[in-house]
């Protein structure tokens, strides 16, 4: 009995006295500051590094939101693990997709004919040169089927 009332009265303490307005306000200003940085950084041309810089700053911002606004820093670690798992598996998805699309032209098969000397396919066979299809009618094939 005493155990329970104790845990009840402790419960608000264990959640409420983390964080507090000061930390939240400081966090807001940090986030606003980083927004200015990221806008400023975008006006310089770092080549392909621009994307990396922008995403890195965004990740710092997201981490700040997660840690302080979403209380992860004071929470049980399991919530952080779940959050990190989300980003981790998204990273796996992204990584393997890019592994594929960035290496499509590597290692052409050795027995592949030299396409440069081949006669080009007529435009009617080239999917990139045929006009975009019209939106699908409800069931255009049906009518033909019964004839």
């Amino acid at each position, binding site marked *: *009995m005493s155990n*329970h*009332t104790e*845990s*009840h009265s402790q*419960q*608000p303490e*264990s*959640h*409420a006295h983390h*964080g*507090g*307005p000061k930390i*939240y*306000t400081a*966090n*807001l200003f940090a*986030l*606003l500051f980083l*927004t200015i940085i*990221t*806008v400023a950084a*975008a006006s310089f041309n770092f080549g392909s590094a*621009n*994307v990396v810089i*922008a*995403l890195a*700053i*965004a990740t710092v*911002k*997201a981490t700040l*939101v*997660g840690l*302080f*606004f*979403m209380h992860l820093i004071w*929470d*049980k670690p*399991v*919530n952080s693990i*779940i*959050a990190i*798992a*989300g*980003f981790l*598996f*998204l990273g796996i*998805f*992204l990584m393997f*997709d*890019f592994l594929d*699309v*960035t290496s499509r032209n590597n290692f052409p098969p050795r027995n592949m004919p030299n396409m440069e000397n081949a006669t080009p396919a007529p435009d009617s066979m080239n999917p*990139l040169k045929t*006009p*975009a299809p019209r*939106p699908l009618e409800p069931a255009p094939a049906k009518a033909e089927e019964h004839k």
Partner: protein
Amino acid sequence: MSTTTTDVHSHGGHDEHGEHNPYHQHHFTTMEQQFDTSKLGMWLFIVTEILLFGGLFVGFGLMQHRYPGEFIEAHEHLKQDVFGSAFPLYGAINTIVLLISSWTMVMGVNAAQTNQQKKTVRYLVVTILLACVFLCIKYVEYAHKFHDGLLPGIFYAHQSEDLIKGTHGYATFFAFYFMMTGLHGIHVLVGIGLLSWLVMRARRGDFTSEYYTPVDLVGLYWHVVDMIWIYLFPLYYLIS
């Protein structure tokens, strides 16, 4: 039904502690366990949100890889003319609006935790207002795109020389733009709904330092909405 607390007392393990929070569900031993479980569930839901949006981010990244030039040209159309130079005005303002709304949200959660019920209501209402400002700006932005015919897929009808209709990539860019900001906007709308529900309950005095789970969970949701925008902003409005 069986989640109400009335039938709890007949069962062992529960009748030890006398006072009962009306929001205590029968299958949890303590309120703290119930709170932690709800929070864990919310985080799991957040993970599904991350992966749902993540799929669109991956798709966007892959299509940008496929049409790098077209995407950069198209994305210039998300900027406005500010003092003679192109600047993503709407995007930047919306970023700041959402960041501030995240702050008011967390302050609202803090107020609920510390039994300041009037303050809770006030912060939540400000959060709703900021969300509405966000949507208004979004509306203006969308209206421009509609006017210029910068629309996804079959609706793409832009008439100037730079983004020629029929060239692959432009319509795809705007398809992703509308899908991602649109899905984000739907989340903002849902957030407004949830926040209004919270305001109603907070005014009724439902939330105390003992029980403020809904405020906390909606807070988490709202921060996720902010977090997604934190990634959307640089990817759509800044990279060139």
